[in-house]
């Protein structure tokens, strides 16, 4: 296998576009199913389910591998696409004075590079809004605390430091008052609030002065997200986004662009990979059209519903 043919030939470049593009279609389905939890389950249960899902997505090793494959696919798809677009531009140095491309091709198919660039910009903004805050930002992140049952056997009671002779179960009911710094311990028997808990590394709860980890919270991506699209989550530490209307509008527009990109891209990927058959191609085309409408539509419905129900 010659290396140059695999990377630089016109047809091989199309294979890469097709493979990365189809992989990103799979990613869209996974991402969509995750997002749909935001509207399928409401209330405290929905918040808990979503945050547990977010925790799983950022800690599971298989997901980690898939996420790196996704980052690479996005970059490769974008870079390869730009290289193709530049070459294609060069292939016609003098433009037609009078051209009627609408007579023989769809506008989506002729504007894949422009649509793709718009999607790339959206992805960058989208990741800075959520992914960056969730994973890297040193800004305070709201935490989602749940009642945690921690069994403590023989040894030291992590809260009081007393020697324990028998196996006991201590229930730590951790609640938040909305400020991420102040978490308190409420004694399950006396219901009295005790100031004996502190937070380290954003998510870990330690017994004050004892340096013993007694529990871990979930990063509250749910509150962050619903607040971003207009719902007030001041109680959880995130007030409603003042520009939520703009955020929803831009999000819906981006999904419209994605829809056009997929309208041509989905079936086109199969053609690039050499799959064109009188029996299967009509089905692939039809599925591609349905996919290009349903997936962006479902994505777009989520922020709209969050915004309406604020």
């Amino acid at each position, binding site marked *: *296998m*010659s290396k140059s*043919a*695999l990377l*630089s*030939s*016109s*047809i*091989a*470049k*199309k*294979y890469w576009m097709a493979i990365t593009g189809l992989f990103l279609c799979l990613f869209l389905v996974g991402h969509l199913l995750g997002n749909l939890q935001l509207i399928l389950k409401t209330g405290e249960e929905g918040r808990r389910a979503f945050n547990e899902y977010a925790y799983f997505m950022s800690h599971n090793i298989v997901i980690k591998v898939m996420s790196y494959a996704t980052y690479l696919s996005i970059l490769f798809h974008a870079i390869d696409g730009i290289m*193709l677009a530049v*070459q*294609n531009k*060069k*292939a*016609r*140095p*003098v*433009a*037609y*004075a*009078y*051209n*009627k*491309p609408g*007579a*023989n*091709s*769809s506008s989506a*198919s*002729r504007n*894949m590079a422009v649509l793709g660039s718009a999607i790339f910009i959206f992805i960058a903004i989208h990741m800075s809004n959520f992914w960056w805050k969730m994973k890297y930002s040193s800004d305070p992140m709201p935490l989602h605390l749940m009642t945690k049952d921690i069994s403590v056997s023989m040894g030291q009671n992590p809260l009081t430091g007393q020697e324990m002779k028998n196996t006991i179960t201590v229930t730590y009911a951790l609640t938040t008052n909305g400020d991420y710094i102040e978490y308190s311990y409420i004694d399950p028997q006396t219901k009295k609030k005790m100031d004996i808990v502190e937070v380290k590394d954003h998510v870990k709860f330690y017994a004050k002065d004892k340096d013993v980890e007694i529990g871990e919270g979930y990063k509250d991506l749910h509150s962050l997200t619903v607040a971003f699209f207009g719902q007030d989550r001041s109680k959880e530490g995130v007030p409603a986004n003042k520009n939520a209307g703009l955020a929803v509008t831009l999000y819906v527009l981006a999904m419209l662009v994605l829809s056009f990109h997929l309208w*041509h891209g989905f079936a*086109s990927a199969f*053609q*690039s*990979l*050499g*799959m*064109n058959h009188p029996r299967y191609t009509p089905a692939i085309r039809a599925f591609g059209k349905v996919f290009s409408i349903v997936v962006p539509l479902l994505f777009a419905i989520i922020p709209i519903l969050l915004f309406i129900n604020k």
Partner: protein
Amino acid sequence: MASKFINITLKIWRQKNGTTKGGLETYGLNNVSTDSSFLEMLDQLNEQLINERKEPVAFDHDCREGICGSCSLYINGRAHGPDRGVTTCQLHMRTFKDGETIYVEPWRSRAFPVIKDLVVDRSAFDRIQQAGGFVSVNTSGRTIDANATPIPKADADKAFEAAACIGCGACVASCKNGSAMLFVGAKVSQYALLPQGKVEAQQRVLNMVRQMDEEGFGNCTNTGACEVECPKGISIENIARMNREYLKAIVTED
């Protein structure tokens, strides 16, 4: 149908040679029979220009029956004009209205440089053909009859459809990327489907695609414009077949 005569305005690309800059020139032409072909109309214009002691418009033409692929004109924003499945010589003036302005431009592609006016150099296609668009046959006298090799009817039909390509370059001209993949796809397919062509299939597709890329054609983005404008109705199925052949070739190449 009774013939009619129309008056038209032509905006034609004039360019002295490959090194000078060209531009659109406007010409009025009266009493054009709607029964005349587009090329006959250009002949009429050239007669008028010669009578006015002006340089006639250079354009490619040969068989004038839709089989040679010479008449490469981009008319009113489309290769070979508004009709489908025709070459320029098969396009008739009845397609146009009285008083209409008609734009005539040469094929626009880096790989098809303008020689003069509407004439472009399509030898890039010849070089792609020379790179692999053939079957090596021993012609020393002991040749065997081609019909002695059984070929399934469906395959023969598909190969024949691909072989209908006349190499006119309308696919390149129509493609927003100036891609030659329909041409190369057809030339690869016509042999890939036949037992005689299978022997050299691997090297054929690799060499032809390499030559295509070297000539400076663009990349296919599957807009499908080429198959719509192709005067011979060649399907982009042939591009998919070339993509398959190429994939097979690069993974099995030594």
